[in-house]
């Protein structure tokens, strides 16, 4: 079996993201870029499945400008066997990403596609579900445990009510939640090995994928700041205030 893993280049989670004064976007000047953390978890899971003998090949795929090759190389250094860059000029929205991924899926015929549940930049949380819809295959989102058994996978999902378990036929799309695993550190010699692994580039324009209809992104603003509230002088007043507000 082959596993396809999606990787997105995003502003690192440690960066204090700030809206530009003119509202045209967020300040990405000189900020650190990384592999989306949920995608790292996706790749780690794929590598563990391969290491357990349940897959032969792990392929990482990313859509973006040539700068995203850096994140693909990180994926190769972690242990992916090869990489595919879908070259695009600007950002693409989830539906276009899902359509492009479907083209790669049709070409590669993976038994499993693992994606992060969301990218930490746009926080859209859509692409995996959309790919599953367009592919007409099962989806197991927000996975915290994956068990493979022949042509089936049993996936534990982190849902608001607790842990839900579902069984899906392969091929399927799995999206990862935080507790699925802890991604490995990259060994230094593996960075050198990654330089020699294949990285193919396909032009987004040549996949025959429509982009629209795209949502129109307007102005950005900083989140509203919390304001100082009231001070009370006793536990009695505190409880009364909370009761007035319907919180107790």
């Amino acid at each position, binding site marked *: 079996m082959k596993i396809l893993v999606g990787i997105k280049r995003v502003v690192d989670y440690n960066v204090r993201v700030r809206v530009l004064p003119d509202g045209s976007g967020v300040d990405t000047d000189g900020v650190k870029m990384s592999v989306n953390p949920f995608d790292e978890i996706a790749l780690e899971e794929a590598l563990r499945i391969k290491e357990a003998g349940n897959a032969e090949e792990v392929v990482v795929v990313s859509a973006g400008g040539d700068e995203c090759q850096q994140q693909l190389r990180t994926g190769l250094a972690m242990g992916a066997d090869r990489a595919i860059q879908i070259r695009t000029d600007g950002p693409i929205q989830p539906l276009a990403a899902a359509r492009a991924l479907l083209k790669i899926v049709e070409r590669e015929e993976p038994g499993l596609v693992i994606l992060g549940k969301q990218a930490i930049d746009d926080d859209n949380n859509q692409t995996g579900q959309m790919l599953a819809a367009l592919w007409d295959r099962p989806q197991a989102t927000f996975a915290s445990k994956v068990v493979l058994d022949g042509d089936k996978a049993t996936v534990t*999902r982190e849902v608001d009510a607790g842990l839900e378990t579902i069984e899906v036929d392969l091929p399927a799309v799995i999206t990862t939640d935080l507790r699925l695993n802890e991604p490995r550190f990259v060994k230094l010699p593996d960075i050198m090995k990654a330089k020699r692994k294949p990285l193919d580039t396909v032009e987004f324009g040549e996949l025959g994928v429509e982009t629209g209809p795209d*949502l129109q992104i307007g102005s950005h603003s900083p989140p509203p700041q919390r304001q100082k509230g009231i001070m009370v002088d006793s536990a009695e007043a505190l409880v009364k205030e*909370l009761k007035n507000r319907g919180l107790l």
Partner: protein
Amino acid sequence: MSKILIVAEHDGSALNISTAKCVSCAQAIGGDIDIAVLGQGIDAVAAEAAKLNGVNRVVSVSAAQLEHPLAANWAPEVAALADDYTHLLGPSTTFGKDLMPRVAALLGVNQFSDVMEVQDDGSFKRPIYAGNAIIEVRAPEGTKVVMTVRTASWSQAEAGGSADVESREASTGGAGHTRWVGLQSGGDGERPDLQSAPMVVSGGRALGSAEKFEVIYQFADKLGAAVGASRAAVDAGYVPNDMQVGQTGKIIAPDLYWAFGISGAIQHITGIKDAGTIVAVNKDAEAPIFEVADIGLVGDLFTVIPEIEEQLG
């Protein structure tokens, strides 16, 4: 005139409160509001939905393959209902996040995720970068709007209405490739999960020791709340690391957050900035926590907590 369909979240017997929050968002958009209740044997849920103020009609679709909310089975059914509507809404809970993008893809549109504010019927505000920026997003002319509604941003629509309930046959079959196995609920008599609990009680360095942190556990249990801690309390070894709230711990958004003996370093505030109401109790009147607290009380937590407990009876 907008025609809005809300996909109800429920557990088979009762409506999830997120549905009533979606109704508030739908009212902000304006137009006819219908609710779709999918499942099996869901008459009671449909009746409950029909009582929500502002709802025009409840469409109930009962079928065996819809018993559990499997997106692969539900999405085609929701997409089949979509013809009559301009807007499709689901809550931004794990239920809605799982289902709605699959619906959007079947309809050939992108989804608006986590809508927190409505500008007009085609323009919305939503958070990106974990809430560190808010963007305005507009639907292209003539396309259907599919969205998830950020539940923390909307209040529940009140009950008091009496909409018609219309039962329909399912128009799609099951996908056949996805099976529901089981649900293990978080609670089980234990303390609620810190990440999703509506009420959280947290303690800081002022607790002084692991033994004294017991005061926080007991108070939380009395209120049925989850327990958190500041990094200082974790670093000092009073509680395990997975209880840490803040930048390097958990980012939470409970309806009510109690901060006892927490100074309120920016790293901690980052983890609670979306909380509904913050209550702070601290000996130090200058503590930065008071600058973000909705209700503050200067005092020693070891005397204040018993006093609060007494007030609560």
